[in-house]
């Protein structure tokens, strides 16, 4: 496959470190993201998938580990101008469209904020046109530019967030549950849009979500997280056909599909972390079971999976 755009090495993100209430939100995970691909990250809330995304874009300072973007360490020391260049390359679409839009700014200014900071448009008319164009790409109309966020539904607000991220033509976008709040038909529009943009501009995505059928559709590879650990990482097709970690199997069996016959026969598996029966001293690590298919398991489990 193509060159690596991002390398995440032993990333750890602990909150309240050293205190009694220490939370290991992300606990020693490593993976690569290749140029032009979409890496899906799934798992239930609290498993650390959003925290992983936020640590990668330096919204949190990582407790340990490295994030290397295009050969440069994201968490390394940077001057203001270096940070500015970096910020333009990496953008984020946030999970909560209610919290991520400034209620006191008009849509026009929210979307154009990035354009202004990076001086991407020269005239007021150009700025306006660009905002209108962005609004239309995300399925809104240009009349919306003069409104405030509270005038929009949750779905529309999320589309504003996407328009804002697209405004500065980034290379890498972290999409944190970008479509969870959208209608099915609009989800398809947005996902198609994200895919088109990817082909056009060679964008790379880290797509964090819990809607597994959409994740499979958009992703080239998928990582499954459970309690701060990456438990399985495989090409999308392979993960769905041949899930190996019991947690992945349980997660996949919980997705409802738009097919009543399938729904009548679907049996949900539950996952019990105690079922592994790990002995003391057993080393549990990511092991490559099939080419490109990694599972977080012990040596003993690895042998039985192979």
């Amino acid at each position, binding site marked *: 496959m193509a060159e690596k755009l991002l390398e995440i090495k032993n990333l750890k993100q602990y909150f309240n470190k050293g205190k009694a209430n220490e939370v290991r939100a992300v606990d020693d995970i490593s993976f690569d993201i290749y140029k032009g691909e979409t890496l899906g990250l799934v798992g*239930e*809330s609290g498993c650390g998938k959003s925290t992983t995304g936020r640590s990668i874009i330096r919204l949190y300072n990582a407790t340990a580990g490295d994030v290397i973007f295009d050969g440069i360490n994201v968490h390394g020391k940077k001057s203001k101008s270096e940070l500015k260049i970096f910020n333009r390359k990496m953008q984020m679409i946030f999970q909560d469209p209610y919290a991520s839009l400034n209620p006191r700014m008009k849509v026009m200014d929210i979307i154009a904020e990035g354009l202004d900071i990076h001086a991407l448009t020269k005239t007021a008319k150009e700025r306006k046109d660009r905002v209108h164009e962005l609004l239309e790409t995300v399925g809104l109309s240009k009349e919306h530019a003069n409104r405030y966020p509270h005038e929009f539904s949750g779905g529309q607000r999320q589309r504003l967030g996407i328009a804002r991220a697209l405004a500065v033509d980034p290379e890498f976008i972290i999409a944190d549950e970008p479509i969870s709040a959208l209608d099915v*038909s609009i989800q*398809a529009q947005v996902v198609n849009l994200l895919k088109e943009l990817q082909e056009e501009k060679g964008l790379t995505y880290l797509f964090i979500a819990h809607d597994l*059928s959409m994740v499979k559709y958009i992703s080239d590879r998928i990582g499954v997280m459970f309690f701060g650990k990456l438990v399985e990482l495989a090409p999308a097709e392979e993960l769905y056909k041949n899930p190996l970690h019991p947690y992945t199997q*349980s997660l996949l069996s919980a997705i409802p599909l738009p*097919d009543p016959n399938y729904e009548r026969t679907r049996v*949900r598996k539950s996952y019990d972390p105690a079922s592994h029966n790990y002995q003391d001293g057993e080393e549990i690590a990511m092991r490559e079971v099939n080419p490109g298919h990694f599972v977080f398991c012990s040596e003993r489990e690895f042998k039985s999976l192979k």
Partner: protein
Amino acid sequence: MEKILEVKDLQLSFHTFAGEVQAIRGVNFDLLKGETLAIVGESGSGKSVTTKAIMRLLPESSSEFKSGEILFNGRDLTKLSDREMRKIRGKDISMIFQDPMTSLNPTMPIGKQITEPLLKHQGVGRSEAKKIAIDLLRMVGMPKPELRIKQYPHQFSGGQRQRIVIAIALACNPKILIADEPTTALDVTIQAQILELMKDLQKKIDTSIIFITHDLGVVANVADRVAVMYGGRIVEMGTVDEVFYNPQHPYTWGLLSSMPSLDTDSKLYAIPGTPPDLLNPPKGDAFALRSEYALAIDLEQAPPVFKISDTHFASTWLLHPDAPQVEPPATIIERMKKFPGSRYYEGEAK
């Protein structure tokens, strides 16, 4: 089957600074005892407004019933006074909202919130109400309910909060439960648990459920019948099999093809354009401008409701005897192959 709720030609408008928004433009449906009716459609299609109208939760200052009636137990809910309505709300008809964080009161222990409807409607004493609340919490699968009853909403996870909301909604054994996107904010594994819980409880207390969602997977899982709403009207209604395997309205086709199945590789079908502006609703079929199957008459006149079977209805001119026969999208033909009675049916091949 016994009809528990009848909505007849409901029309409702909102008065805004911009003018009159015709949010519901003639909605008809029945709810049968013990069934789950799913209402699907995009934001602004009127699905939430319909259920809020049933609950009379819409602001009286800005909303107006234009015509129609909502019959529950022989009484027209649109005509009741606030006082009479309060006796029904939370007792005979109750509601589960989308976001459990905003539908629970953050300053009140959850026990107090669960006992509220019991004290109000059932006339039970405080200690009796507390006992029932503990039983309810146990019923919705909350561990250690005796202790947790004193805790506040922020001390619970999202899935647990939704269980509490369900416990409150079920406190008075309602005849109708309206669930407005109850699992949209939850994880798949938690969603699966909540759906199983709702189905289980439905069997126990024999309540009817109106389930609003835009997740067609969830619909396929829970619904007995499905109503598809678009532009303030129900455009197609039928049993879950009829709507998923023999859909007739182009909007339903669009909805079903825009969701990827686990084998979709090709580009997703996205319904082009945006929902209609209900300030100036289109004259003909509201979906015509976004539909590649639109006929000339669609722009002139709204289609009547055509009957496909005793339980299956759709409102599209394509079903008129004089309409040209059109080929539905490939993904829809694949679905129709599974439906006995459709012209693409392929027997037992599955």
